[in-house]
């Protein structure tokens, strides 16, 4: 795969994995490439084939067919050379509990052929960088989940891998630890380490990755930057209104009038209107999409809310699909409704997030 802006760090070509005694392929002809120095997010529902794909790339699972290249090495033919160039931070701690945290780092470095003086120095630097200096020589068992995660990232970095695999690196961490891990990931990107990240946290993927690949049933469904993926999804943002039409006016007539306005692509009536419980998207029954908070969405989301009118007859909820920024449509919509004497009781601005893209591509069914 030719890339204008750099060499390829990881390449997967027509990769297939079928586990014994299964009738479907866990990975089914997967092809994608990750550029050098890129943070690449691999997203997919449980059982989509993420873990298997990463397992093959990290030499722990044998592929049924296809090719997997990592830092110029054929992973399937030369796993030993591949191992020297990669590092894995698993989701669950696999730290060596017979060793201290510092020894976890130095022994790992030794496995990778780093000389004694060099590895002690690197371990000291990393322990400091990851805020583990003061607890470098205790029992690993005493470590909290966040500390163990930091130590595993430090361990992954000590042999200076070219490609780093992070499996749900912040699952179960407190917000402080998560931000800390995010900062370290950004630092690694600046140092040119290629990172493959698997996560279920769409905010994390949107915040950290240069590109994401969304896979399901072992196949690639989409691959682009989070921003492009979101843009591609129906191309717009939405405005949701709870309106009580004036006596003699109907919801359908209102919709017709709203669609006629500039900047409105489409309008539809959604589930029966309920009293607004305040700002935000806390409607229990509603919002099939556009509820999530991608980057940037959070700022725009909780929006103007008019006072609720208890007992008002016949409020309807309308969703307007816009071709322009939702904020710019507020004034025209409000004046249009005013001319028709319709009463506006709630306004909600929704912007699609990566989560919406994900749900759109992989469906709402539970796995």
């Amino acid at each position: 795969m030719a890339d204008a802006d750099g060499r390829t760090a990881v390449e997967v070509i027509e990769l297939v994995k079928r586990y014994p005694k299964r009738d479907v392929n866990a990975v089914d002809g997967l092809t994608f490439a990750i550029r050098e120095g890129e943070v690449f997010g691999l997203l997919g529902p449980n059982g989509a084939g993420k873990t298997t794909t990463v397992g093959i790339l990290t030499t722990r699972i044998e592929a049924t067919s296809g090719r997997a290249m990592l830092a110029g090495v054929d992973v399937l033919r030369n796993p030993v050379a591949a191992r020297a160039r990669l590092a894995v931070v698993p989701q669950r701690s696999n730290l060596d509990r017979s060793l201290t945290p510092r020894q976890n780092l130095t022994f790992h470095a030794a496995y990778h052929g780093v000389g004694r003086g060099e590895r002690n120095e690197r371990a000291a630097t990393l322990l400091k960088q990851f805020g583990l200096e003061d607890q470098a020589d205790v029992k690993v068992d005493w470590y909290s989940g966040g500390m163990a995660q930091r130590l595993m990232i430090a361990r992954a970095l000590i042999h200076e891998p070219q490609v780093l695999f992070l499996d749900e690196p912040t699952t179960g961490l407190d917000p402080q630890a998560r931000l800390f891990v995010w900062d370290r990931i950004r630092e690694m990107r600046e140092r040119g380490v290629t990172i493959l990240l698997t996560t279920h946290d769409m905010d994390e993927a949107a915040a950290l990755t240069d590109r994401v690949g969304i896979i399901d049933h072992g196949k690639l469904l989409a691959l682009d930057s989070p921003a492009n993926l979101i843009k591609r999804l129906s191309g717009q943002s939405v405005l949701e209104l709870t309106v009580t039409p004036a006596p003699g006016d109907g919801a359908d007539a209102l919709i017709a009038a709203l669609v006629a306005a500039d900047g409105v692509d489409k309008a539809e009536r959604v589930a029966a209107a309920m009293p607004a419980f305040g700002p935000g998207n806390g409607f229990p029954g509603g919002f099939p999409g556009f509820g999530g908070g991608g980057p940037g969405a959070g700022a725009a989301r909780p929006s103007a809310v008019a006072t609720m009118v208890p007992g008002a007859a016949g409020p309807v909820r309308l969703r307007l699909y816009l071709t322009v920024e939702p904020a710019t449509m507020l004034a025209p919509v409000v004046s249009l409704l005013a001319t028709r004497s319709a009463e506006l009781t709630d306004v909600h601005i929704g912007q699609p997030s990566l989560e919406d893209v994900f749900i759109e591509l992989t469906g709402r069914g539970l796995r």
Partner: protein
Amino acid sequence: MTDLILPLRSTGSSARKAFLAILWRDVFVTGKELWVLLIQVALTPLFMLFIFAKVLARQGFVSASYGHLLLPGIIALAAFLTALQSVAFPLVMEFGWTKEIEDRLLAPLPTTWVTVEKLVIATMRGLFAAAIMYPIGWLVLGTAPWRPEGIPLLIVVLLLGAWVGAGIGITLGTLITPAKISIMFGLILTPLMFTGATQYPWPTLDSLPWFKVITALNPLTYCAEGVRAAMVPDVPHIAPWICVVVLVASSAVFSVTGMLTFRRRAYR
């Protein structure tokens, strides 16, 4: 099976370094937790020796010379059992639960070499256990057979016996899940311990032909018989060359099964 063809020349030196490093890790951890190993391995043989050769002899149920027959068997048992247990238990936990072994599976060396490293460290632990059993046995019994000219044979059969134990240990450790660990050790270890000619010489089993056959199928028998041939040749024993041949064959077989099951566990 690409793993077996490797390492290429470029990865050969990294694989050698990695092998030595993971071996050093195990030696280091063994040293750090030596008392755990001692308790784990020495206690069963010690009590066996104490009850059978000391208590029963003092009460007159067995002859005083039984100690000299039992001690070589106990030394063989210590070598075999220590090698087996000290690799099987950790492997069950590391593969099934703690996943600690992953860091070594991701080191730049062929997976087969990781298995070989496990064989080496387990054999070393087995030899260590055999070596400390002798002075302990001497302390318990107040006397112990001493025959310098038997030492070369002694070392060979103990080394091979420990190697067989290590191979069986790796095979079991990579086949068994943590949930089944107690069943396995009850079902496999106890029969192995008591059908291995450690407490009785195999050639004297003529009155129990079926048991003689079962004992002949246990590789531990050949280790115990070999140790007796080296230490107390007056006691009837299987010819040393047979012991060595069977032990070499068994260690080859169980090394291979260990490598295969280890590989199956390490790779999916």
